[in-house]
């Protein structure tokens, strides 16, 4: 398995703000590698460095064995980049946009049509429509088609699913998985934890630092505490009640339930009674499996949120 991206010690500052601090990771061929983190974590800055659009202040990056600073011209031919903001020509039609990108990279739509067929077929019936008049999901499909039309070896997608509905998102991820067949490596970012499981490996990123890099399963299992899921019709009261107990380490709302960890990894004695005394009489308590988000919470809690 060959390494497609090798980054070591990347740092980047904008004025006083450190956007990236000492970032190291490697991405293997045909892998879907996801950067998971909130807005402002540094994902876009990192992607601009990977795609040779920005230089790091320090550190090294090699993409497809080439140095991004010296060999940027060769590299750009091999990379497909879909920026977070829709950046196609709004006043060109669907087809004209695609043709434009194909031409810039010295190819034709016909030559690589098999690569984009899956996605492009959804928007092909509207190929005469101006790109600016497309819906969110269709724009996303067009942008991806344009990023793929020159058959890049590396595809870099910055938050491709933001603002897209769940059905289209799910189709999008299915489609990314199929790119493995063509040995295309995918680097993708998302602020949404539930998309992490669709990646082969992930990096959790927050405030310019990588908190963890591994397969989603390993990252999730690094949450070592016993996790309990507690439910009540009065969720907010329940959270406050749990936080007032000495035995509680953490207690966070998690969808319909509250995820809680306790000292010594066991339920406090008389928990039911303690909750009743605090006005919660309908608590149902089960042990539950941790997810990526539980681990992310744990990691950021031990880093910077301690003071908050």
């Amino acid at each position, binding site marked *: 398995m060959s390494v497609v991206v090798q980054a070591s010690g990347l740092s980047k500052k904008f004025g006083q703000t450190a956007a990236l601090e000492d970032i190291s990771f490697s991405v293997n061929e045909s892998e879907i590698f996801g950067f998971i983190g909130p807005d402002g974590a540094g994902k876009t800055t990192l992607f601009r460095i990977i795609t040779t659009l920005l230089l790091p202040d320090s550190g090294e990056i090699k993409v497809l064995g080439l140095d991004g600073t010296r060999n940027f011209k060769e590299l750009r031919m091999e990379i497909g980049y879909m920026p977070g903001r829709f950046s196609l020509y709004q006043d060109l039609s669907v087809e004209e946009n695609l043709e434009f990108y194909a031409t810039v990279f010295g190819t034709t739509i016909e030559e690589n049509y098999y690569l984009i067929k899956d996605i492009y077929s959804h928007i092909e019936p509207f190929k005469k429509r101006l790109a600016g008049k497309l819906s969110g999901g269709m724009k996303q499909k067009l942008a991806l088609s344009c990023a793929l039309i020159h058959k890049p070896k590396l595809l870099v997608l910055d938050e491709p699913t933001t603002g*897209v509905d769940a059905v289209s998102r799910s189709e999008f991820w299915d489609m990314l998985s199929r790119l493995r067949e063509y040995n295309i490596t995918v680097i993708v970012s998302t602020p*949404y934890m539930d998309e992490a499981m669709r990646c082969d490996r992930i990096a959790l990123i927050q405030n310019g630092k990588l908190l963890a890099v591994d397969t989603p399963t390993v990252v999730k299992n690094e949450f070592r505490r016993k996790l309990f899921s507690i439910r009540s019709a009065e969720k907010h009261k329940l959270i406050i009640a749990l936080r007032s107990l000495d035995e509680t380490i953490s207690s966070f709302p998690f969808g319909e339930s509250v995820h809680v960890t306790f000292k010594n990894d066991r339920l406090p004695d008389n928990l039911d009674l303690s909750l009743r005394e605090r006005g919660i009489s309908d608590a149902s308590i089960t042990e539950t499996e941790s997810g990526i988000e539980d681990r992310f919470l744990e990691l950021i*809690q031990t880093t910077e949120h301690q003071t908050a």
Partner: protein
Amino acid sequence: MKEKVIEVENLVKRFGHFTANDRLSFDVYEGEIFGFLGANGAGKTTAIRILSGLSSPTSGKVKVAGFDAGTQAEMIKRNIGYMCQKFSLYEDLTVRENIALYGGIYGLSRSEITERTAQLLDRLRFREYENKLISDLPLGLKQKLSFAVAVLHEPRIVFLDEPTGGVDPITRRQFWEMIYETAERGITIFVTTHYMDEAEYCDRISIMNDGRIVALDTPSNLKKQYNVSSVEEVFIKIARPGVG
């Protein structure tokens, strides 16, 4: 039984031959956190525009905060709050100036603005930021402030569009806790989102498809009904029947 703050009966909205909302019927209660879901183009935006007094129904009964959406749209606007993920606050005004501006727009008196500004700054522990420009605040704080400003005039209902998109998991939970507190005070929270894990936090959710409401229940009942473990799977089953 809690009071209904939104009552919709057979709401139809047509644009020419296109039916964007096809006989919608649902109620939302005081202090409820209601998730309004649907794929792109399902008709959510049309319905929300009607519920917030920006558009009137072609037919059907729509009452929001006790006012009729067809004839009393202006009264509806006074009794609702709105927050979308972006563009809610003026970046080049300070925290304090933004609060005063929104207070003024919502028709609060000078003394009410002063009083509520102080309450808000204390409750959010925002004193150290009061004279900072919005553009200098981190995203998490901006979102909390946007929400606080959207309920500054104590509306009956606040509409939230993807309220916690893009924030880190801790900020996100702090935000939901703010929403719970607000709902406890009796303000109804009407959430639209594309993110089904966000929908899991709501008391009840409705899912729209092709202009109709095709499911409406608590997240756990829907998961039971469709025999799946997440709202996301419910959504995909409904919006793409026959697949999976």
